[in-house]
């Protein structure tokens, strides 16, 4: 579809929780530097797809490759170290770590694979965090937490940044800021896989889009094609 | 430690014995060497937990005695059925029944712990069988209120171990003492006997300090003793508590200022672990390692040869227990069903061959024995003299006498 060897390639991925299968064969590819929107109604398997890709939910069938290397079944921390950064649903801020510690604990040399982000670069991206370096995670506002979650993920030096509902519950002004930052990150050559409710913004940011329906990918194509197809949006996204 | 378990029979050996007995009955008589059924000795002693060392020494002493008797009693081989009492009173009734009811032992030996002993003696006393010999537990009641025709003790009563020490302290010129022990029956009985004797001789007890049993943090109490500044301290702890108390006492600088007295258990078996801190502590005891009499020297050599360890007072109590078993079984010519006759053979018996020196069984079934005054030099006990000759427990409340 895209490049000869995508950065991330999931083929026929099955996964679920306990005895409840959620994914029934997800195929998904993200090329280096590309940004992809992952869409779908609630409960269709977006978050599970993300968790399966990064190794947090065990995969019961199919395979995942990073750079052509199989990573299926690898523990999450190994996959993370191969250059995948996560901004999870709910932000996952550590209440007992300060802002500075969040950045420090995530920092690792990316081995030259992804763009190198250091504390200075991240704080330049989010000047507000620079004023809050000694605050604990619990002392931050929602927007600041979201910025920290993104900044923290960048500190791992990712080639692929995965964001799950990164603008949810935020004030419009903060949202706008996040979207603009995401655009800048994209500009640095980081691939992005993003789940969000804001379809116009997504279609604006992303090259391509994929729609998850009942644990399968029902559509995968360019953002422009999805933007043009009102009927499909209506059918699978309810917009 | 493991050596003592090499001959641990358990149920398998018991079954083997039973099989042999059956074979004797079934096989055509002329072709079989008569192998009489073994005399079963049920042993309920601790082999794990705090008192494990005592249980092992008692068992070894008893086995040595019976081995010297030729491993047979009136022609019947000896078989041990050993149960670990874990020194846990809770299991005592169950374990006792196991030996008495299921295994039908001919003689019951045990235990170390007084609480266990009270439970055992009650069961065995009420049944009137089998013959029971207590090789250690010192609870006064065992040979007082709870005394029973078929229950004997080969060790001591708590009262006996404390009483002579009162006189020793008075004789040494002390006018005031502080007593310290665990808050439990043995502590009360031993300290009570010694303190009463001391007061009767004109001394004054400034304070009775009681430490929660079996707690071993003494520092606060040592500071208290230092402020009270008595002439002497009368202390009873045993095992790990004794090790730590004596060492802490010395480390707090009290040893040089206030002499320490106690029943023998304060240093017995633990003087090595106590090291220099034990030097000079005076105690009264019914046995001393270095007791210079021929029976003791022979006993200690034999024990060392058999087990590769030095004997201690518990080994002696075990040894005397073995002797009592042998005497009672021989007296009934191996017919251990005659419990009354076995007991009668032990009434007033005098054990000339005891390593602790000759002693006599009192009417209440407790040894009437000599208590020695000793101190510790370089980790060894030294006999200083006799603290009380032929001391008998008052046996208050015993209906046997």
């Amino acid at each position: 579809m895209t490049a000869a060897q995508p950065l991330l390639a999931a083929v026929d991925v099955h996964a679920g929780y306990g005895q409840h299968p959620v994914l029934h064969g997800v195929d998904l590819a993200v090329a280096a530097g590309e940004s992809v929107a992952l869409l779908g109604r609630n409960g269709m398997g977006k978050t599970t797809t993300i968790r399966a890709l990064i190794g947090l939910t065990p995969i019961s069938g199919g395979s995942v490759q990073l750079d052509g290397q199989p990573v299926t079944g690898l523990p999450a921390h190994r996959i993370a170290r191969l250059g995948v950064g996560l901004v999870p649903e709910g932000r996952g801020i550590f209440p007992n770590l300060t802002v500075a510690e969040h950045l420090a604990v995530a920092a690792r040399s990316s081995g030259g694979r992804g763009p190198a982000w250091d504390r200075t670069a991240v704080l330049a991206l989010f000047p507000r965090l620079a004023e809050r370096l000694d605050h604990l995670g619990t002392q931050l506002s929602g927007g600041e937490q979201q910025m920290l979650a993104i900044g923290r993920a960048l500190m791992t030096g990712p080639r692929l940044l995965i964001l799950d509902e990164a603008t949810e519950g935020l004030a419009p002004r903060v949202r706008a800021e996040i979207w603009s930052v995401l655009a800048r990150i994209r500009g640095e050559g980081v691939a992005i896989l993003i789940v969000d409710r804001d379809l116009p913004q997504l279609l604006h940011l992303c090259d391509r889009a994929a729609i998850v329906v009942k644990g399968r990918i029902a559509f995968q194509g360019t953002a422009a094609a999805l933007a043009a197809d009102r009927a499909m949006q209506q059918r699978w996204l309810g917009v | 430690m493991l050596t003592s378990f090499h001959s641990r029979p358990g149920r398998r050996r018991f079954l083997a014995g039973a099989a042999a007995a059956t074979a004797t009955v079934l096989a055509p008589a002329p072709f079989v060497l008569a192998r009489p059924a073994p005399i079963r000795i049920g042993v309920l002693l601790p082999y794990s937990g705090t008192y494990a060392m005592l249980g092992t020494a008692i068992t070894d002493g008893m086995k040595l005695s019976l081995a010297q008797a030729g491993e047979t009693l009136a022609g019947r081989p000896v078989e041990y059925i050993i149960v670990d009492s874990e020194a846990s009173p809770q299991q005592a009734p169950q374990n006792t029944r196991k030996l008495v009811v299921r295994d039908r032992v001919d003689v019951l030996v045990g235990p170390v712990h007084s609480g266990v002993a009270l439970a055992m003696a009650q069961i065995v006393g009420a049944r009137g069988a089998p013959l029971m010999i207590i090789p250690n537990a010192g609870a006064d009641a065992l040979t007082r209120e709870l005394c029973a025709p078929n229950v004997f003790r080969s060790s001591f009563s708590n009262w006996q171990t404390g009483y002579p020490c009162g006189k020793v302290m008075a004789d040494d010129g002390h006018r005031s003492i502080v007593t310290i022990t665990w808050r439990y029956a043995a502590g009360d009985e031993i300290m009570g006997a010694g303190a009463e004797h001391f007061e009767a001789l004109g001394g004054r007890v400034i304070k009775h300090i009681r430490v929660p049993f079996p707690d071993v943090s003494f520092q606060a109490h040592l500071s208290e003793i230092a402020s009270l500044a008595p002439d002497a301290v009368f202390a009873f702890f045993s095992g790990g508590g004794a090790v730590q108390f004596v060492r802490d006492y010395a480390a707090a600088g009290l040893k040089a200022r206030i002499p320490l007295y106690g029943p023998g258990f304060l240093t017995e078996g633990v003087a090595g672990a106590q090291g220099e801190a034990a030097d000079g502590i005076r105690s009264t005891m019914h046995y001393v390692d270095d007791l210079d009499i021929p029976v003791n020297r022979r006993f200690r050599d034999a024990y060392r040869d058999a087990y590769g360890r030095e004997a201690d007072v518990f080994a002696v109590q075990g040894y005397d227990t073995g002797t009592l078993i042998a005497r009672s079984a021989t007296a009934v010519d191996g017919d251990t069903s005659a419990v009354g006759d076995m007991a009668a053979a032990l009434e007033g018996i005098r054990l000339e061959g005891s390593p602790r020196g000759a002693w006599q069984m009192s009417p209440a079934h407790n040894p009437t024995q000599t208590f020695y005054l000793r101190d510790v030099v370089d980790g060894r006990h030294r006999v200083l003299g006799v603290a009380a000759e032929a001391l008998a427990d008052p046996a208050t409340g015993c209906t046997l006498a």
Partner: protein
Amino acid sequence: MDLAGFLVQLLNGVQAGFLLFLVASGLTLVFGIIGVINLAHGAFYMIGAYLAFWLTGLTGSLLAAVVVGVAVLVVLGIAVERLAIGFLYNRDHLQQVLLTFGLILVLDDLQRLIWGSDFHSVPVPAVLSGAVALTQQQDYPVYRLFVSAVCIAVALGLFVLIQRTRVGMAIRAAASNREMAEALGIDVGRLFTLVFALGVALAGFAGMVAAPISAVYPGMGDRILILAFVIVVIGGIGSVKGAFAGAMLVGIADTFGRVLVPEVASMVMYGVMAVVLLWRPQGLFGRPA
């Protein structure tokens, strides 16, 4: 009680508190960070004391014994975590309680197999064997003061490790949100093994340091385990700071309880714990659940 007597007993209480903290800190770390209720903590304390006894006999030096002993305990801790505890992180706390209960039985028996049932003691190193005069009647053993110093050093070391190092940050991160830490590339499995081994080593280290001022005997870990639990709960589960406060409170309350109300002395610390829990169910330094 006169002032001198009071101050001496206060010193006793604080000194006891320091040693208790050493034991409790390992328990609270394991408890708070990897969520494991380790009933075998006291058994590891006992193993430490026996190692001190055994290795001091072999090497003639308590210092050497502690160095080798800590290494042995770390290996033991890693083994136990890898072979057993590690499988239980996602299970009910009760399963951990039961498993570590089984571990107590096994360790107690192993101790008996290896070292027998004798009481032992470890000599106080010659350099530390003296006493300093406090009052005319009172001396204070130098080794007890030394133990306090060691405990303070360990407390500071733990504080630096947890609060100031990158490993400490990773530990705190993993403790509050394991999956997120994993997603940041932190090998939480290995970190938890490390924390468990650290807890075991701390318990054993406490046993080693305490060995010269306490006899070494079977079952010595039982009482210390319950004490450590009381301290951890008073201080707030998972809080090292809380463990310190709890240990001091228990050490001092216990010491004065013995002298002032000897009849109920052993209940004093449980009373303190009950009062603290009823007033602040989460403990002194715990965060409300």
